[in-house]
């Protein structure tokens, strides 16, 4: 759809497609369907060779004389080590015992996250709230108050960002801290393993389930949407 808007203005486009069924309907001018899971459009992270292969096949479509053209990348290229989509919280049974003190747990994760930053050269997906990891104790307290049904607020919330959206940014930043921290602890861990650990074994996972429950109990569709985005 975006491709069509660009072509109408004279820009040639070529796209990578993840959902073949959708691409067949939308009919972009040129698309390469790839057999990779969501979140893996170019194949595998830190695998420049495979990424170049996908890129080359996508750019080659520009040589096609007529369109629309939808070509398949070889299915044998599918990485067999990852599930098609990460497991959801509802499918993961929490452990009998998870840490009660989430603020303390978060401070411990911060140490691992600092290691992650050293290894990644400063790359992190943490940053949607604009609150640095050093002040995440406050984010945890805010989320705990919200989950407990209190009327909570954070001075860092910009006035134009509605409360449920801000809560989702807080949840996403917290997830980034834990997931990237886990990658520093266990560099080979995949998304499924980290999701099982986060939702099953951490106090933060339990807290976000409770945040989700309060959002989902609301009649306001924006609250429900935030709940669906945090845990399902």
């Amino acid at each position, binding site marked *: 759809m975006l491709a069509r808007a660009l072509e109408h203005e004279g*820009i040639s486009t*070529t796209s*990578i497609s993840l959902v073949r069924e959708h691409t067949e309907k939308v009919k972009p001018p040129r698309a390469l369907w790839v057999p990779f*899971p969501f979140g893996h459009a170019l194949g595998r*992270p830190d695998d420049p060779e495979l990424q170049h292969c996908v890129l080359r096949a996508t750019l080659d479509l520009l040589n096609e004389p*007529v369109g629309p053209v939808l070509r398949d990348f070889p299915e044998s290229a599918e990485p067999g080590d990852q599930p098609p989509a990460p497991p959801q919280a509802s499918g993961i049974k929490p452990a009998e015992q998870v840490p009660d003190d989430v603020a303390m747990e978060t401070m411990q994760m911060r140490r691992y996250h600092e290691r992650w930053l050293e290894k990644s050269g400063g790359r992190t997906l943490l940053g949607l709230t604009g609150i640095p990891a050093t002040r995440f104790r406050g984010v945890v307290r805010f989320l705990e108050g919200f989950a407990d049904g209190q009327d909570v607020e954070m001075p860092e919330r910009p006035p134009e960002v509605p409360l449920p959206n801000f809560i989702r940014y807080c949840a996403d930043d917290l997830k980034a801290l834990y997931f990237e921290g886990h990658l520093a602890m266990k560099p080979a861990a995949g998304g499924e393993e980290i999701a099982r650990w986060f939702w099953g074994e951490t106090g933060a996972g339990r807290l976000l389930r409770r945040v989700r429950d309060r959002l989902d109990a609301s009649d306001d569709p924006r609250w429900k949407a935030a709940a669906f985005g945090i845990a399902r």
Partner: protein
Amino acid sequence: MPRLDRLPQISRNNLLTFPAQVNDTAPFVRPGKPLAACRLAIVTTAGLHVRGDRPFTPGDQTYRVIPSDTPTRGIIQSHTSIGFDRVPTMRDVNISFPIDRLRELVARGELGGLGPSCYSFMGAQREVRRIETETGPEVARRLRAEGVDVALITPT
């Protein structure tokens, strides 16, 4: 993506009921020159943006500009759907925004060059009217003004 029948039911249902646009034909502009002479820009629907830029919200039909010389550590993602795995993006943003790979193609002379800006939209949109009629064409006009011949469109 792997075939729909391999997905968990909740994801499959979400995709099967997704209101994808249905078209019979497609506009088709052939690049007037070989790739080695083309200027290219990434247009992504992965909800990426420069750190500190305004995050996307669900249903947001606006776009963000990512200067092509932005270092990868300066890029974050507010498309945080839990339907997909974010770990690959944490490891390597090239997984949906192959800016380093494109720089390599330019260095090897296989691609003419990069436009000064890449553009980013939010993905998984159910209502796209404004992108179709307003923000999409606006990005196209900006790309044209920046001398871009080819857009590489990438999802999350």
